[in-house]
């Protein structure tokens, strides 16, 4: 009798135990850098952009081929022949998270707000006037011609006009529009994106849930049988990778999209069968050479630096994780042209030849090159120290220093204050990406500051070609222009590119994606392009 009771109890416990294991929760905890504002008019850093692509939809969407494709706008055309007047036709039936339909009124209001507030990513657009043509058509009138205007709208995310107007604070900086809803939108969303914000503590955490009525739908085509849309997103914003590694291995963190892992951490992740790495976009490690400061004002001296640098030495163990050759464009961008030195290796003999041709050939021992990096970034310092060792073989002194970011970035405000060499990491964060890496970095009307710390605008042929890229409406012909201009720029040795640095997204094995690899910060971090395998999660984590 007693044995029977014990057996029955055990059976009951087993029964309860079996059914007590709940289904794996359909949620993804994602770490990125701090999302400070979720207002599309003020969002500027790439981390903000990652949030934008989840909460909002841009008018046009970046494509893997490098251009843009229809999204909220189904088509567009230049009216007249001078590219100052663009007409966009909107998709019908697109719903905001509130349930209201997106119309030309919302798009025109959002553009006016974007331009008036003059913050965030509005700079590259110039002055734009928006005019409603009809419910689904909107015109944009530009202050100067731009054949690439549609591409620049990949960072334009329309907001719901009435919702924003209902939440403006007065008085504010914008007259009758008060604060233009800036305070409210920093912690709320008024978008059409695949996820709806449920809460946002700036710089700490952003919670969102799936928007069932998202206009692109949630088709299972192309996905595995057990791969379902992620229902809930929790963005956390942490920077300590020791802690993040702990979270990753314990299964608390599902996806990390900032990619600041150290080499040993990457090796651990790669060796762990429950974890994976995804590479979407890379960053271009760029070392500008100030052409207005001695001795980097001499082209041969700059070329000597190009050939003296030990590219293989600096990449070393990182090669296994995708670090490798790069140039003016990133190698995975259409139209990439390899630049000198080719093959990608140190060539001290050639460096000596170039040095002998420079005006500093006779007094090399008096020459000093100042190399500055952003204080705290070890990989940048490594490049400086590598160069220091390489140039020492040629009898040239390189001084390496790492002032803190505010000081470092302020140095680059003029040719006089910029050191001989400055190193930056440029992620593809401005649309269109080809323009960002070419016109914005080498034309007199480019982004200036840290983006053009070479200060060289003296070659009329380059300027003419760069202007032509912005005037060329045909994407294929424009791509040919980008291909043509790269060797010309490279010939002046304005920068050297130690390597490209992939941003590796670490993820749990049950997180699958992205469905498309788009070389641009944000679009592939749209969680509509990712799925979760709940069966696998349950098997690995037990619910």
């Amino acid at each position: 009798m007693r044995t029977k009771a014990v057996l029955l109890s055990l059976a009951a416990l087993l029964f309860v135990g079996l059914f007590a294991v709940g289904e794996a929760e359909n949620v993804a905890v994602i770490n990125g850098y701090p999302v400070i504002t979720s207002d599309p008019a003020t969002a500027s850093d790439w981390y903000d952009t990652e949030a934008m692509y989840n909460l909002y939809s841009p008018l046009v969407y970046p494509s893997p081929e490098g251009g843009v494709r229809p999204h909220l706008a189904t088509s567009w055309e230049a009216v007249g022949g001078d590219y100052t007047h663009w007409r966009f036709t909107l998709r019908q039936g697109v719903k905001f998270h509130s349930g209201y339909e997106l119309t030309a009124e919302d798009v025109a209001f959002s553009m006016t707000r974007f331009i008036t507030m003059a913050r965030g990513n509005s700079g590259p657009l110039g002055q734009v006037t928006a005019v409603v043509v009809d419910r689904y058509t909107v015109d944009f009138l530009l202050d100067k011609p731009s054949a690439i205007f549609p591409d620049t709208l990949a960072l334009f995310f329309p907001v719901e006009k009435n919702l924003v107007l209902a939440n403006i604070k007065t008085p504010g900086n914008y007259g009758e529009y008060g604060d233009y809803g800036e305070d409210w939108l920093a912690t709320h969303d008024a978008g059409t994106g695949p996820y709806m914000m449920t809460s946002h503590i700036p710089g700490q955490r952003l919670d969102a849930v799936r928007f069932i009525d998202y206009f692109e739908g949630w088709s299972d085509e192309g996905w595995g049988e057990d791969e379902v849309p992620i229902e809930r997103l929790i963005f956390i914003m942490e920077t300590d990778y020791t802690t993040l590694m702990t979270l990753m291995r314990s299964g608390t963190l599902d996806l990390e999209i900032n990619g600041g892992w150290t080499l040993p951490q990457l090796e651990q992740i790669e060796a762990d069968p429950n974890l994976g790495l995804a590479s979407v976009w890379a960053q271009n490690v760029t070392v500008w050479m100030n052409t207005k400061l001695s001795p980097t004002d001499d082209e041969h001296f700059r070329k000597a630096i190009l050939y003296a640098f030990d590219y293989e030495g600096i990449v070393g163990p990182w090669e296994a994780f995708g670090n490798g050759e790069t140039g003016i464009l990133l190698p995975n961008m259409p139209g990439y042209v390899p630049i000198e030195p080719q093959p990608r290796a140190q060539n001290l003999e050639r460096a000596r030849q170039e040095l002998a041709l420079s005006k500093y050939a006779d007094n090399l021992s008096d020459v000093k090159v100042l190399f500055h990096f952003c204080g705290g970034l070890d990989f940048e310092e490594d490049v400086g120290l590598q160069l220091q060792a390489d140039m020492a073989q040629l009898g040239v002194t390189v001084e390496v220093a790492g002032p803190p970011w505010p000081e470092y970035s302020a140095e680059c405000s003029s040719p006089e204050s910029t050191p001989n060499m400055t190193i930056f990491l440029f992620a593809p964060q401005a649309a269109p990406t080809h323009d960002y890496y070419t016109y914005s970095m080498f034309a007199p009307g480019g982004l200036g500051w840290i983006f053009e710390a070479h200060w060289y605008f003296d070659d009329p042929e380059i300027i003419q070609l760069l202007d032509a890229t912005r005037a060329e409406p045909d994407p294929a012909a424009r791509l040919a222009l980008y291909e043509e201009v790269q060797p010309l720029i490279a010939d002046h040795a304005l920068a050297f590119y130690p390597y490209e640095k992939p941003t590796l997204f670490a993820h749990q094995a049950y997180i699958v994606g992205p469905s498309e690899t788009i070389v641009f910060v944000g679009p592939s971090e749209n969680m509509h392009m990712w799925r979760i395998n709940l069966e696998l999660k349950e098997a690995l984590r037990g619910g």
Partner: protein
Amino acid sequence: MLTFIGKRLFQSLFVLFGLSLLIFFIARVMPGDPARAALGFLATENQVEQLREEMHLNDPFPVQYYYWLRNLLHGDLGRSSYTHRPVTMDLVQYIPATFELILFATLISAVVGQVTGVLAGFFRNSWFDGLSRLVSYLGIATPSFVVAIFLLFIFSQVLKLAPGVGRLPIMMTPPPTITGFMTLDSLLAGRPDLALTALKHMVLPAISLAVIHIAQEGRITRTSIVENMQKDYITVHKVHGIRTPRLLFKYLLKPSIIPTVTVMGLDFAFLMSNAFLVEIVYMWPGFSRYAVTAMLNKDLNAIVAVVLVIGLTFAMVNLLVDIIIMGLDPTVRLRRGGG
């Protein structure tokens, strides 16, 4: 007593004014462009210049300070160029998280430090004294963030005895914010389970912060106990046959903890500004991290505000320490006319 407190508060106002003046000018001469930092990488020069005008950055320093002081008197500390929110809103969000943590850390360091110090002093040159000395030196020599990483790895990842990071588990919805203290807000929301979870989350970061202070306070208490044990009145009490517990608690402890209380006060204020590495390791959304982020991003309004808060904390804690010492030491009470 009230006169004394009033006088000290009045003095504190002058200290804070001087501090604000100093930090206001230091923040502005630091290299870097706050307008550029606020607008991000893709802003045009025109946009940057427009914001400089809006922030009065092109005006002379005294004019900038006038605007800042005028707004301060209206309760406006300005807008953070990093978070794009009013600085007061940021402070309300971040201060309670750190305050709650360092209160807990101070409690741990006070209890453990004092008990260790008293026992080590009372049983001078015993094995316990030797062991506590060794552990103290180790505690003083080990930076808090190293302790933090070690504790996180051992107790959270390997042994799974304590929760890892944050104020609550990531999946858990926090209670409505009333005081900003997670434990208190949970209780006010009728969720003792949540309060207990929040308390568990505080254990490892609080111990990480407390270790160095346990060591310091333990050593100071020990020295003080040893010193007081050699005083004549203790010898007299011993001769009169007063039992050890009574001797310890009634006659020895009170005068011996006075130096420790002073140090504890300073430690508390010190933690307010120096907890950032532990806050980073434990993903603690606190004031100390906010302060460092403000510095790194040249967030002028936030920098001045955090320095003022730290200054205010030092002033208030010192006042509190003085009041406690007046309670503990009658000679101080008499000297300051506290009655």
